[in-house]
């Protein structure tokens, strides 16, 4: 038990670094997609996984969900919820990428919203899996966030109730 306590600062530091990375990536990816929803709709349809009627609703809503989840993880507001959304999305992205790579599709990733650029590769899948594991770590440690708005509010409430 004492040994675990020794490592706690390291665990929280790692969790916080993961939060910053995931939050920044998701906010950036969301903004890029919001800029050009039609291009993102093409990227989604290229995966050939969703029925036609679902493509536009996903192209409209998903970027904003990414931005909100990213902000939540960055600021530490609703941290467990943000981390759960990010982990779930990354699992879905990795599955879609894996299926497309297995099917040999030469398509644009759409990860950051543009139709221009390189096609999908196995590296993208590895990247998503690494980010997914980071998301799971943040989720599991989210009941004790440091340097977050939630913890500041909790501290203020604690001080005022004394």
């Amino acid at each position, binding site marked *: 038990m004492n040994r675990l306590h020794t490592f706690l600062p390291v665990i929280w530091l790692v969790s916080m670094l993961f939060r910053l990375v995931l939050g920044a990536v998701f906010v950036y990816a969301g903004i890029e997609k919001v800029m050009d929803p039609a291009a993102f709709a093409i990227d989604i349809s290229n995966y050939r996984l969703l029925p036609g009627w679902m*493509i*536009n609703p996903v192209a*409209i*809503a998903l970027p904003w969900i990414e931005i909100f989840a990213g902000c939540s993880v960055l600021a530490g507001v609703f941290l467990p*919820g943000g981390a*759960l959304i990010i982990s779930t999305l990354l699992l879905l992205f990795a599955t879609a990428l894996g299926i497309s790579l297995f099917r040999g599709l030469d398509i644009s990733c759409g990860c950051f919203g543009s*139709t221009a650029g390189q096609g999908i590769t196995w590296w993208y899948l590895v990247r998503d899996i690494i980010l997914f594991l980071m998301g799971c770590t943040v989720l599991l440690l989210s009941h004790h966030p440091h340097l977050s708005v939630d913890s500041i509010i909790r501290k203020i409430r604690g001080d005022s109730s004394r």
Partner: protein
Amino acid sequence: MSLQSERYHDLAGTLRTAFLQALLLALIAILIAAAFNACRPNGLKWLGQGPLPEEYAKGSGTFETINLEDAFSGYTQGTLVFIDARSSTAFRSGHLPGAHNIPPENVSSCIDTLRGATLLGKTPVVYCDGPGCDLSLRVASLLAEHGFPGIQILTAGWEGWYDAGFPIEQGERP
């Protein structure tokens, strides 16, 4: 309560909170997305299908599109240079006559070859499999970034050209 059971309850509580918060975050995000989409000039229709690449190319006003008849006429007059954006395997199995095989990852290394062709007054026409693919759009975007003007996209693609019975070539480019 044992330490293990306490940890289990801790985790279950975190996941329950996470689920409720995720629902709330998603709901707020969807409401903002709907409002933003309704206000913006290039908003998408909620119930429509995503635009095909050629619709996007037309709508964005970035690239001209060319139909099969005009492409064939340009081919016979020698005014076009075809760019096949598909993989080298697909290219070898069949391509438009005289086409250069330039997938997105090879654009940078093929700039000089293309510049030579366009200097002769030929218009670059990019194509991929057919209306549903976006490789032609990607290659056209990259070429535009390298300063190529007047790029056109053959929206019917290889499938349209082949189905129309127009001449084709097979194997590597000589």
